[in-house]
């Protein structure tokens, strides 16, 4: 496994370099002079020159690029234009909140998706199956920027069960996690149904039943275990959607994570902060994909890493 991990990490280097290059190039996509765009039309020439110097825009492009990569190697993502403090520090401060929300959303998704998908597979073609799939299709089609406010209206405003803004105890986490996890739950439920239904037709499940193992045990201990690889793969692939969804969910519920920081920074034209947030989310995503790859081996010992 170690040689595989080393090779996988090596292959990630060009991707990460490409990601860093694209993030570096972002500020150069700003039409016209980035410094003027950031400060606005009324800014004085002196202020613009100072900002150009602060951002390094007065240097040749190659020098800017090398300095940017050098900064990354030292975990230096630059200085926020709004607060004047290091970007990396502010992002690290917000990271636990986003992590907490993403994990909670995945837990919500799995808690909803596995029973729904298993029930649909076991009672395939029946009312249970149709109902479960309609619910999951509705979940896929319902944008989280609509579901979030709806949950806030019903469970926050009307019923008063949960707070609708900020981070605190577990009660603060419920609505953002459900809002973020619902679409993932819908996707996973469809995949769970398809794979469990396929496994239930395999001879080893019939053999298990013939040996007198109960239906529930045959489904949960045999069919579900062998269905986990595609489910984990899909969950891993959907982490990207969770991280992007977090940008919206954090904005709706005033959740103090990286997503909200990103949206606030866009509003303030704090481009070093925007670059830092984008870079960190992309790197996290690449890292999660590697972890998902490695989890396969744990789930299925037949998989050999070469």
């Amino acid at each position, binding site marked *: 496994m170690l040689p595989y991990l080393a090779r996988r990490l090596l292959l990630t280097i060009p991707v990460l370099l*490409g990601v860093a290059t*694209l*993030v570096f190039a*972002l*500020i150069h996509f700003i039409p016209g002079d980035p410094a003027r765009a950031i400060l606005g039309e009324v800014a004085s020439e002196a202020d613009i020159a100072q900002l150009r110097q602060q951002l390094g825009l007065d240097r040749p492009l190659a020098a800017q690029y090398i300095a940017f990569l050098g900064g990354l190697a030292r975990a230096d993502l630059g200085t926020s234009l709004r607060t004047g403090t290091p970007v990396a520090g502010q992002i690290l401060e917000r990271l636990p909140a986003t992590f907490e929300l993403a994990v909670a959303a995945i837990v919500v998704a799995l808690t909803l998706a596995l029973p729904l998908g298993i029930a649909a597979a076991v009672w395939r073609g029946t009312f249970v199956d149709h109902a479960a799939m309609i619910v999951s299709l509705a979940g896929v*089609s319902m944008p989280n920027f609509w579901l979030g406010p709806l949950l806030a209206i019903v469970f926050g405003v009307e019923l008063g069960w949960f707070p609708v803004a900020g981070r605190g105890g577990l009660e603060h986490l419920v609505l953002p996690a459900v809002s973020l996890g619902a679409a993932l739950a819908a996707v996973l439920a469809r995949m769970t149904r398809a794979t469990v239904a396929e496994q239930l037709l395999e001879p080893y499940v019939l053999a298990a039943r013939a040996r007198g193992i109960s239906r529930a045990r045959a489904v949960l201990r045999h069919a579900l275990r062998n269905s986990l690889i595609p489910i984990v793969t899909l969950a891993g692939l959907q982490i990207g*959607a969770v991280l992007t969804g977090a940008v919206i969910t954090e904005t709706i519920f005033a959740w103090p994570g990286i997503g909200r920081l990103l949206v606030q920074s*866009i509003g303030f034209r704090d481009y070093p902060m925007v670059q830092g947030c984008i870079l960190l989310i992309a790197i996290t995503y690449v890292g999660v994909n590697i972890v998902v790859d490695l989890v396969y081996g744990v789930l299925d010992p037949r998989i050999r890493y070469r």
Partner: protein
Amino acid sequence: MRNAGAVVVVVVLLAAIVGPWLAPFDPSAQELALRLEGPGRLHWFGLDELGRDILSRVLSGARVSLLVGLVVVSVSASIGAVLGSLGGYYGGIVDEAVGRLIDILLAFPGLLLAIALVAVLGPSLTNVVLALSSIGWVGYARVVRAQVLQAREFEYVAAARAIGAATPRILVRHILPAALPALTVQVTLGIGGAILSEAALSFLGLGVQPPTPSWGAMLNYGRAHILDAPHLTVFPGLAIAVVVLGLNLVGDRLRDKLGRPGESA
């Protein structure tokens, strides 16, 4: 029930085409005295924060959403089809270059790069289309590449090559048609995805700018009135969910009939 998706899509298409004539009020006309009024006999969906009729704005918003969906998918599918077929057909360094570009773009989760691009380019409908297309082609390129890799080994392609057919002709006449079923499924699902993405960007204030009605932007303005006027949030969101549900249903049906994109790779 089996054609529910197609029915929804046709109804929304009709609403987008004849919506401006069907709308009971001018979507920009303001009745400030009645601002935030709830749904009633005259204004079925109620009025927004500037006293504009929400039903009329939802109908006008259908045009914006479908336009963005169709343009983004057309541009993305065209770029993806060209790059995917070139990579799949030629292999070697061309395929490597396309593959690495795809890898880099896939390292950005979902909408994130589009958010970043619109943030630096400035919020506008054109920039939304530009940003969504510049990341959207990746999915199409992967599907087409996988199909082309398979199709280039077919005997009729070898025969076309043997009788001296030019590469562009082989690609367009013989190989790309093999990728069309998978591409059709991807396009149907892609329109729904593009509509959701446009709405998400507009929700964040990065998409269509006022006074043009956009479902996402309407949801964004509705946030400030979630306590006193929840109807501002309910109806535009319902419109998005219904359209995307319809497109997903059609995409699912097509996938069952034509095969899953890329599954034969």
